[in-house]
């Protein structure tokens, strides 16, 4: 005991040089104990399950009304109420484990694997579940109107998919061990696949669904291996036991574990990371997310912007103590996040499809979150997840409303002047506020507060280059966000002729043609404004986005929530005791507010110049750039840096060639030689063994007796022969 204490002191003494890297080691958080009495938490999983089953029943019994939507909204709303009740009732200071039932329990000889199905309720779980169920309910309500042209079996399928998603997301977030998390992880992957491919008769939707699923599988393989190695080394997958082990011996526990386990342990954080990068669309896996916009817009808002894609961040915050198993793990996360943020932002700048711009901005914002985890600010990451969930949901839902109203039109070169069209006020102004948030407008936008934490921590953690990338990205983000808003909502007032043209068939490179609107739209060729459900949901989520401002600032509610969870190691980690006379620039937390605001406002100003005041200047600028030596960059940005093409050449083509080669091998070598050969073999044996064609019984008897004699001889005589040979030698 004393020895180990001494050891840790000695190691700590030798480590002062890297104090800034290891400052978070000292953070302790309470480890959960099993408890009774909160069993009703299982309702959070049971309610979506009920909704799923009911939707299935509706589909079979041919319900042709909005009943599926109301059922789903009711179930998810109740689930939200249960989460809220849990939040009010549960003791946030002390996480609890709620055992539900025994799921897997296998033992053999000395080994055993057990995975109880239990819920891990701590502040992080509740934080995530609050916005997941809350947004789930609201977006289901929005979808009740958005999907109304599909009422019938497809409507049931849609809401069934949403219920499956909420069920799986509940497993992922609330499970008390990594195996349950994995179950949910695959579950949300399936729900995502199912909903992206909702228009399954449309080849591009099917291709997008497959792409999302396959790319995710690669990351999931990493996660599966990570979980396996965790089990192998630690002997358990339950969070409470894992965390206990990782902080058992004070500061050095993780490092000691890593030393004891060799590379198999050191690789665990990287494998978990691979899973997180796949699900959260980071480099090199991000390519699936933009295509996932083929799904109906409520799905994009709920799954591919607000909730599912933050599962990767959740995983890393949840297993934050395990990131310390290798010193390079956290920096890797930070750099991947930063690189993704910048890359996606540059692509987003050059897209014309507003939903695609939002998709790239999601990838980019997720990059910020990972940067936050990587610079050891789990608080920043979680805060950004939380604020982003609301304002990005609003952005997608407004895009969806526009697309719904304008017969699938999403091209920002075509849309304009929405501000002046009757009935679109709520859409326009909620979109405006959400754009402010995404752009990081000072003080009154929630995104400003959460993004600042991450950027400041990047500088405080001694990663100024990363912080610089983050700042640059913030500027680009502000630009492309307001590019969309100025283009779509501002500009000259469109008359009826212009509106009809926007609805017209001259779409430029967009393939959302036939989504979410009925046939009758084509007849009167006028946009229809959203109705009460859409407007209500947009207003409520926008209010939530405004409200989230109050929760984000330092020492606020959100920081408290993260500090009491397994992500505690990344809360306030980099607040160093600065000397009182340190200058203004010594504390990044101080100056970041001003710098980030300036950068954001600069981006908005550029957008305003190019897209509000000089609406033709953008095209001229593009033409000028294309004539200049910079044209390669512009083309590359418009073509998404050719990453899809690169993957196609490097991965898909070789696999295709290999597939064709194997097919040839199978068809011309294996089939002819082995399969047909084997097929003939029994016949040939049969022919040799039974010369009497009508004496089946006798031949069977002969074969049986022959076989028995052969085996008996083999067993009895062979050892003797071997003995003899051995003796002779």
């Amino acid at each position, binding site marked *: 005991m004393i020895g180990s204490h001494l050891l840790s002191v000695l190691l700590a003494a030798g480590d002062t040089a890297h104090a800034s890297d290891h400052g978070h080691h000292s953070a302790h958080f309470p480890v959960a104990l099993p408890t009774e009495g909160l069993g009703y938490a299982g309702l959070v999983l049971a309610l979506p399950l009920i909704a799923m089953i009911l939707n299935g029943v509706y589909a079979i019994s041919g319900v042709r009304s909005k009943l599926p939507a109301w059922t789903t909204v009711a179930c998810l709303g109740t689930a939200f109420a249960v989460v809220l009740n849990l939040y009010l009732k549960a003791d946030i200071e002390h996480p609890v484990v709620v055992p539900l039932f025994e799921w897997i329990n296998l033992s053999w000889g000395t080994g055993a694997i057990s995975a109880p199905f239990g819920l891990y309720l701590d502040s992080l779980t509740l934080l995530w579940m609050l916005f997941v169920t809350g947004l789930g309910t609201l977006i289901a309500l929005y979808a009740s109107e958005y999907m109304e042209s599909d009422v019938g079996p497809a409507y049931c399928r849609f809401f069934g998919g949403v219920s499956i998603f909420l069920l799986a997301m509940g497993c992922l977030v609330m499970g008390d061990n990594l195996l349950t998390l994995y179950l949910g992880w695959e579950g949300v992957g399936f729900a995502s696949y199912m909903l992206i491919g909702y228009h399954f008769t449309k080849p591009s939707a099917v291709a997008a669904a497959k792409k999302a699923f396959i790319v995710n599988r690669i990351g999931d393989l990493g996660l599966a291996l990570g979980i396996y190695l965790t089990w192998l080394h630690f002997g358990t997958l339950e969070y409470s036991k894992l965390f206990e082990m990782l902080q058992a011996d004070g500061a050095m526990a993780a490092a000691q574990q890593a030393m004891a386990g060799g590379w198999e342990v050191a690789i665990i954080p990287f494998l978990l990371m691979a899973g997180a990068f796949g699900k959260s669309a980071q480099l090199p896996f991000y390519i699936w997310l933009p295509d996932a916009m083929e799904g109906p817009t409520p799905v994009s808002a709920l799954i591919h912007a607000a909730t599912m894609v933050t599962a990767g961040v959740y995983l890393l915050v949840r297993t934050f103590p395990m990131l310390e198993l290798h010193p390079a793990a956290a920096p890797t996360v930070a750099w991947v996040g930063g690189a993704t943020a910048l890359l996606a932002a540059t692509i987003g700048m050059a897209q014309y499809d507003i939903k695609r711009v939002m998709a790239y901005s999601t990838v980019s914002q997720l990059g910020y979150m990972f940067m936050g985890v990587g610079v050891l600010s789990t608080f920043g990451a979680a805060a950004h997840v939380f604020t982003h969930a609301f304002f990005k949901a609003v952005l997608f839902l407004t895009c969806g409303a526009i697309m719904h109203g304008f017969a699938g039109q999403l091209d920002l070169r075509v849309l304009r002047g929405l501000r002046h069209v009757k009935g679109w006020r709520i859409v326009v102004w909620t979109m405006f506020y959400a754009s402010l948030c995404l752009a990081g407008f000072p003080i009154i936008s929630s995104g400003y507060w959460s993004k600042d934490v991450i950027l400041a921590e990047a500088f405080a953690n001694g990663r100024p280059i990363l912080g610089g990338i983050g700042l640059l990205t913030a500027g680009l983000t502000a630009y492309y966000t307001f590019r969309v808003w100025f283009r779509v909502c501002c500009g000259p007032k469109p008359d009826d002729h212009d509106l009809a043209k926007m609805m017209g068939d001259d779409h430029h490179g967009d393939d959302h043609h036939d989504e979410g609107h009925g046939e009758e739209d084509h007849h009167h060729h006028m946009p229809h404004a959203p109705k009460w459900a859409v407007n209500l949901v947009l207003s409520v989520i926008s209010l939530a986005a405004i409200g989230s401002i109050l929760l984000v600032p330092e020492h606020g509610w959100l920081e408290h929530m993260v500090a009491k969870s397994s992500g505690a190691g990344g809360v306030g980690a980099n607040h160093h005791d600065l000397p009182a006379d340190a200058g203004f620039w010594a504390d990044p937390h101080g100056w970041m507010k001003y710098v980030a605001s300036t950068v954001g406002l600069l981006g908005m100003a550029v957008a305003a110049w190019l897209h509000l005041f000089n609406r033709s200047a953008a095209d001229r600028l593009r033409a000028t750039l294309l004539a200049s030596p910079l044209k390669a960059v512009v083309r590359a940005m418009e073509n998404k840096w050719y990453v899809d093409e690169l993957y196609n050449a490097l991965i898909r083509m070789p696999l295709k060639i290999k597939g064709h080669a194997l097919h040839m091998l199978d068809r011309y070598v294996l089939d002819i030689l082995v399969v047909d050969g084997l097929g003939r073999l029994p016949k040939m044996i049969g022919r040799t063994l039974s010369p009497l064609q009508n004496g089946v019984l006798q031949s069977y008897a002969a074969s049986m007796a*022959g076989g*028995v004699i052969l085996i*008996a001889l083999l067993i009895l005589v062979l050892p003797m022969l071997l003995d003899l040979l051995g003796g002779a030698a």
Partner: protein
Amino acid sequence: MVDRLDGLVPEMMLLALAVVVAVLGLSKASSIRRMVPLLTAGGLFVAAWLAWGGKDLPPESAGFLAPSLAASLRSMIAGVGGVLALVASGTVDRRLEHDVESGRMPFEPLRASRGEFYAFMLLSITGAMLVASASDLIWLFLALELTSLPTYVMVVMGRAGRRGAEASVKYFFLGAMATAMFLYGFALVYGGTGSMQLADIAEIVASRRNLEGLDMVTTAGFLLALLGVGYKLAAAPLHLYAMDVYEGASASVTAFLGFVPKAAGTIAFMVLLQTAGGESLPAMVVTLIWMLAVLTMSLGNMAALQQTNAKRLFGGSSIAHSGYLLIGLLAGPGEGWAATTFYLLVYGLMNTGVFAVLAALERRGSEVEQVSDLGALRHRHPALGWSLVACSGSLMGFPPLLGFVAKVWLFLAAVQSGHIALVVIAAINSAAGAWYYLRMMGMPLLGAEPSEPVEAAPSPWPARAAMAIGVLLLVVPFFADDLMVQTREAAAAAVMVLGS
């Protein structure tokens, strides 16, 4: 000797029931005749319950196998036997009953064979249960014969006409040959050790192996006995009859043949292996079972791959499953046999389920056999279609169906006992088997509807049994832990008894 009777209450009850059933089957009232299958099934379920109570029998009332293990085996046989009786309802006397009902002719006891059929069924099941209580070689031999002899007759009774007769004759003659083989083996064992009592033989074998090594006569005896009993299991090379006989018999009888003799054979293997050394078997016996397992599963799967006849296909599958059972037997008492017992039970259910689906269907009064006949079964008979999917999937080991749980346990037990190569071969075989199981899963779901539609058979019981089994296969995995714990406890108790 009177003590022994305490442990045989369920068997005695079944023998009495066999007589009752044989008489009731001749009753003039058709309602009573119709009750016969249900009565048989009810009796078997009661026997299963009684046999389960035999776990705590004192050693003097038990046979050579420990009472805890024997009780779970006997109870399992009777339980699955009850389901088999339900599946067989409507198999026998169909034309006669039809004629009587339509008033074309009066009921003639001389033409009726229903009572005898169920009596034979009960006798055969009793025989299989008695194998588990065997205490000497004679008992073992008689019990095995009691299991087999009625089945020869059942094959011919279950299906009027040439095909049933041909299958029956084939089955009988080859069976007689196999019997001769293991009887010769028993004789050699007796000659080598000088005792008929299994306990004595086990003691002599153990002491001899400790001193100078086991003599050639006894070893050869064990080898021959095991090979001969392999016929009951349809283990290679004595598996050749299986597919022909399974095809020739009616579906419900095939279901019976796929389980009861196989269970008897498996238990006889346990008895013989226990005698030959239990946990530390002689090297030659290990080699023999290893070879049998590999040959059986490989040949079974290969044979099933090319079949277009559903009964032949599942015949091949049944052979392959015997190979898996042999792996469990080789894994040794304790975990291995616990897994084997569980697997046997699960296999019995899945196999019965598959043939129950076939028994529940007909076309113009004759059986449905071709794989293609089952195409798009889901549309016309959804419950049967899905049951077939569940049973085939379970046979394949498709998670989370019960067959998967059983297979995983079996393979884990084998790995634990060090037979890794065997498990690898078995895994390859499982993968190869997936090819035809998937075909059987796909056929009712996606296959093309046959040109001539299939209809439901008159008796509702096969369909009900198939549905119940389908549901069980899907639901029980969630409670499989309890079952596995029970089985494992029984096996552990058995090992303890042997150790003392």
